[in-house]
């Protein structure tokens, strides 16, 4: 048995099998459990090392698998990455039933997750661009149900993600040339520019992120949230493998500055735009743009922090997004709209749902005591050491996001004097959001709890991990 079989082929088979159950609860439970099991296997099973089961029997999980002449290999250093990806995916799958989308999200989500893992494992690694494109295509039915006419957001999502592929493939083709003749400045410029453009489309760098607020108005917030977690995370890991592989790219003098500029642009524009939204879903969309900005900033600091800040950001961002998306889905299912005008005063009817929504929002805006505060503080401090003006722009973006949260709070508490407090939402919805809130608070006070999981993650990237 090989590692790619367990973490790529098996999840694809599971994705097909998970279409069978007719009850959403069962699909969600089985999907969550499967993903959790895959994460546990990644934590426990050593790859490419013989495991002695008894005096006569031993077991070895090989690292590679050949498909159509291409090599797919997962090394033991990549184990913690698999724990992180499947662990967080299980979180999304468990919550999908409460969001009313389990029967679509779990099978499709499992397949997309497996494909993204494949994109990290394929050799030659440029094939990853094709696998990511496949995953994007599979995501379409998740974001746009079969009987529904696709909106502008989904079409634009597809256009931008598809445009990314040729840029990355061209860049990869040129990179081979750069490796053989590193002194050729013209070639370096061309490949770096193409690569930057490719990743700009994939990561939805300003102004290519217009599909995010549009799609959130059209599709189920939970499904969009899942894609907005998985797609940037996988793209970032793909980007890291580029940086890790090519020394000239890693040591490119302008790289930290370019990453910093892109990150600050994302944070400032995303944050300021979030401050003026009147739709709760769009606000979450802009928050994910800010999240991407922070990941870019953390990468810009890789010479000081290696990848510690980057990996420290991933879990709180994913947790916050999951709670936020679930809360929005519950509200949309029950109230039918996420417009400010329709949710005025509703905190008294959905206190737990709004607590989740607001704390996730405040966490994204780096309110102290909440999960995203410690990593954002670390990144902010790192940026301040380099440029105080940059830190000020970052602060402006956070202030914008915080303003959005305050506006949501102000609108949601404006209930009439005669209305009473009551708890609506199902038992499952409230429990899951409650657990999410608890973890957001715990990680805000004790971020060191993540340390044992994160400490080995950078090892997957030999040169960047330090």
């Amino acid at each position, binding site marked *: 048995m090989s590692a790619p079989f367990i973490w790529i082929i098996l999840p694809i088979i599971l994705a097909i099998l998970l279409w069978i159950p007719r009850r959403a609860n069962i699909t969600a439970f089985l999907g969550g459990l499967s993903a959790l099991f895959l994460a546990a296997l990644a934590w426990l099973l050593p790859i490419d090392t013989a495991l002695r089961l008894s005096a006569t029997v031993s077991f070895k999980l090989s690292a590679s698998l050949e498909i159509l002449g291409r090599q797919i290999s997962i090394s033991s250093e990549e184990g913690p990455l698999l724990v992180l990806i499947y662990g967080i995916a299980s979180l999304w799958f468990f919550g999908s039933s409460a969001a009313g989308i389990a029967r679509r999200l779990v099978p499709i989500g499992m397949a997309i997750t497996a494909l993204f893992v494949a994109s990290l494992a394929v050799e030659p690694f440029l094939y990853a661009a094709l696998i990511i494109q496949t995953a994007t295509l599979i995501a379409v039915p998740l974001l746009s149900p079969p009987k529904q006419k696709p909106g502008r957001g989904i079409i634009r999502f597809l256009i931008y993600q598809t445009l990314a592929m040729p840029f990355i493939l061209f860049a990869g083709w040129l990179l081979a040339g750069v490796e053989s003749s590193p002194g050729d400045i013209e070639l370096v*410029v061309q490949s770096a520019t193409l690569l930057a453009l490719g990743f700009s489309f994939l990561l939805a760098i300003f102004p*290519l992120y217009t599909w995010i607020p549009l799609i959130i108005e059209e599709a189920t917030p939970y499904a969009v949230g899942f894609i907005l977690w998985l797609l940037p995370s996988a793209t970032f890991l793909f980007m890291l493998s580029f940086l890790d592989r090519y020394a000239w790219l890693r040591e490119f003098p302008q790289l930290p500055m370019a990453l910093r500029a892109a990150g600050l642009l994302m944070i400032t524009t995303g944050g300021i735009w979030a401050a003026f939204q009147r739709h709760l879903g769009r606000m979450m969309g802009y928050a994910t743009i800010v999240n991407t900005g922070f990941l870019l900033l953390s990468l810009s600091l890789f010479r000081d922090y290696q990848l510690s800040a980057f990996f420290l950001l991933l879990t709180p961002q994913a947790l916050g997004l999951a709670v936020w998306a679930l809360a929005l889905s519950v509200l949309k299912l029950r109230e039918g709209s996420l417009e400010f005008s329709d949710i005025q005063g509703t905190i008294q009817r959905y206190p737990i749902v709004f607590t989740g929504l607001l704390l996730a929002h405040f966490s994204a805006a780096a*309110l102290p005591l909440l999960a995203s505060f410690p990593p954002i*503080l670390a990144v*902010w401090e790192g940026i301040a050491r380099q440029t*105080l003006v940059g830190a000020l722009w970052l602060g402006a973006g956070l202030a914008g996001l915080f303003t959005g949260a305050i506006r949501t*709070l102000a609108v949601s508490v404006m209930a009439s*004097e005669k209305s009473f407090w009551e708890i609506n939402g199902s038992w499952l919805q409230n429990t899951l959001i409650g657990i999410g809130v608890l973890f957001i608070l715990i990680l805000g006070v004790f971020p*060191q709890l993540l*340390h044992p999981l994160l400490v080995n993650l950078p090892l997957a990237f030999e040169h960047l991990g330090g």
Partner: protein
Amino acid sequence: MPILITILILFLTALTLLLLRLFRPDFRYSWLLAVAGAFLAWLSLFFWQLDMPLVLSLPPWEPAFLFSDPPLLLADHLSWAYAFSLVTLALGTLLTAVARENFPSVPAWAGTLSLSGIGILAILADNPLTLVLAWTAIDLVELVTLLGSVHGKELRERVVIAFTMRVLGSGFLLWAGLVSAAAGTSLNFVAAPKQAGIYMLIAAGLRMGVLPIHLPFKTESALRQGYGTMLRLTSAASSLILLARIPFSSLHSPLIPYILGLVTLAALYSSWMWVRATNTLDARPYWQLGMGSLALAATLRANPVGSVAWGVALILGGGMLFLSSLHNKWLNRLLLLGILSMAALPITLTATAWESQVSSWWGFLPPLLLAHALLLSGYFRHARRAEKKEFKTQNPFARLMYPLGISVFLFALFLLGFWGWQGAFSIGIWFFGAGVILLMFLLIWLRPRVRALNPLQAHWIKPDTERSFHRLYSAFWGLYYFLRNLSRQISNILESDGGILWALLFIILFASLLSGGIR
């Protein structure tokens, strides 16, 4: 260890109270348990004195190289005075609870003890990170409590604005840390770089409620009086400690005289409103703002001990007044005795309040002394107000416990005059104290004779301050709507059918810039 013991006593008692309410709702000794917990915590504070300064390291954040300052608690002679005041406030709140309408109220008692614990965490914070965490905990507790207890859109909007202002204050403290990081040092309270001091000052000013100045919450009076007082004063104490921690060396900014001018204006305005207010609880923000302004002025005049003196007087003097709900000749005299310890007289709590390490900006002293006298004369008037219930109508148990609750404040006020912290047993600038007392008596004598000194509602002139605040808010909202329309226009362009072309145009622009930059 002693720090941990005190905090554990407070939190465990609160937890026990809540568990008992949940599983044994008919438990009859909840109040006794709450008072016993508060009293034990109060006693444990005296043991801190045996081995001061005390340090308590909390679990460090990891990876360590990302977080330069781990959360740390430090109890020294300045923070001890605040910690002692907070636990005294909790004890006083619980003892006087017997005379309030909502007795028994187990959640409010648990809340009082928890707030006291969180307040101590804030007060003992040894670095900005720890302080910001404790501040946010207090802010969230205050937000949830007030949203749960006030009704009506306008009042709730004010609660949200107050929360925003406090978080903004926390943001300024974080910014001070970032400015320090940019200067190549990590921000701590011992050696803050001179660029950071001004932001720390703004942080404290914002959190103490300089903006917006008045936030009356029309809530149930029992909540306002007991738990409400605890909440307001804990929040104030947690902000005031920062004033004692800002090193004067970091306050070398050309803006300092202007800030001192603004602080003086805030002190005069709030003390004036305090004197003229009709309802003591409605006027509570003015007391906080007035005394807080004097504490801020002390920091600006390089007198951190003085700022602690003002801060402790705010908590203990204010707590005693706001918790008093019974009327009796002797009780009134007890309240009035408190004025002595707040008048900057020798060997009293505020003896060091008017000392200064800097000789410049003496021109601000007369208006600040006037504000002090106005605050004391207002205190005198509110202590003698007739709106309280008659002491004799209470049951014997309440008649025994209630005076004890008021006396504990008075005991603390006088004890801190000669023992326990750096400002104790000091002569200070006694003639300022004497002058303030004389001015106070003059104002009391003038009150029935000068119409302007009478309560606001009895006067025909409407204060002009509201209008100017409205103008300020209108200007703010004008800017907000302008930016909102601008962002909407840009969004419409980028999200419309032609948006893809615009995006591609931007991309080509970026690509040309990028390749130009690389060359």
